[in-house]
């Protein structure tokens, strides 16, 4: 009887920590783990307690399922929020994850920033653009308040809009691709012993 209580409390904890999965997925996992515990205890004649100890804490087991799902969903997603959430999780697991997360954050900031400046150009035409100094050296680009001084001249004019849109969009696309590829690669690395 005691064994049944132990199994039930383990499965309850597992179910709880599997929260983000669909009910059907969750129940399937719980059913499979329940069968494992009963089979394993019966087969080896060991106590349910020992079998549960070998399975590891319910929250750790559930986290492995959740991570798998999170990364799987993200490697097919194009939503920056979903992708960054998955890389944030990856970042807790090692240097590779931290690098991917940083690349993701910078990529989205730079790409998103450029697209934003393209949209601001019609509103603040004098403050938005790309400036060079008298000797032809690059000074600055983007949206500046106040605009650079008289020695600077803006070189792109209205062409700033399509150019910033294209470069910004390409940066966003590249960032999305880089994160998705890294997540797909990491799936293989994440299988733990």
């Amino acid at each position, binding site marked *: 009887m005691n064994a049944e209580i132990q199994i039930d409390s383990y499965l309850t904890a597992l179910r709880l920590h599997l929260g983000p999965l669909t009910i059907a997925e969750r129940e399937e996992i719980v059913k499979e783990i329940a069968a*494992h515990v009963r089979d*394993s205890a019966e087969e080896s004649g060991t106590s349910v307690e020992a079998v549960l100890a*070998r*399975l590891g804490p319910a929250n750790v*087991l559930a986290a492995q399922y959740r991570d798998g799902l999170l990364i799987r969903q993200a490697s097919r997603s194009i939503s920056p929020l979903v992708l960054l959430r998955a890389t944030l999780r990856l970042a807790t697991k090692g*240097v590779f994850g931290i*690098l991917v997360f940083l690349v993701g954050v910078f990529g989205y900031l730079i790409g998103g920033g450029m697209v934003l400046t393209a949209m601001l150009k019609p509103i603040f035409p004098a403050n938005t653009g790309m400036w060079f100094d008298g000797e032809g050296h690059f000074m600055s680009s983007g949206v500046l308040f106040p605009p650079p001084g008289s020695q600077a001249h803006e070189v792109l004019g209205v062409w700033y809009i399509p150019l910033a849109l294209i470069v910004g969009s390409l940066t966003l696309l590249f960032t999305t691709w880089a994160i998705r590829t890294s997540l797909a690669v990491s799936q293989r690395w994440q*299988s733990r*012993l």
Partner: protein
Amino acid sequence: MAKTRGVIDEADQPDRWEAQLRKGAVEMAALASLWRGRLYGLEIIRFLENHSRLALAEGTIYPILSRLKAEGLLTSEWVEAEAGHPRKYYSLTETGRQRLRVMAEAWMSFSSGLTELLQPVFEVQETTR
């Protein structure tokens, strides 16, 4: 920079290196255990224990099986058993068989190359004995 340091850290710890090596092999081993037919989770764990040195933490195999299934490499079915509860049996899909063939070929060519490379290390050991 940080990445290089991480690699060196891992190489400094043989146990950790071996653990990484095993991790890389688990997925292939799980697929290989199903080559001859369907098995349920505990049978896969026992199969890997008996046929390889991959002693798995028991909870580890289930999330991996779930992922392999999501990737379309495995299918599963619940089968009623005399034990009184149903068991979830896994089998390879055609994609899974193809993937395993590719993995096995890559593994064999990789390991035979390395075996050759490592040969001198064993020769030195024998002569020093």
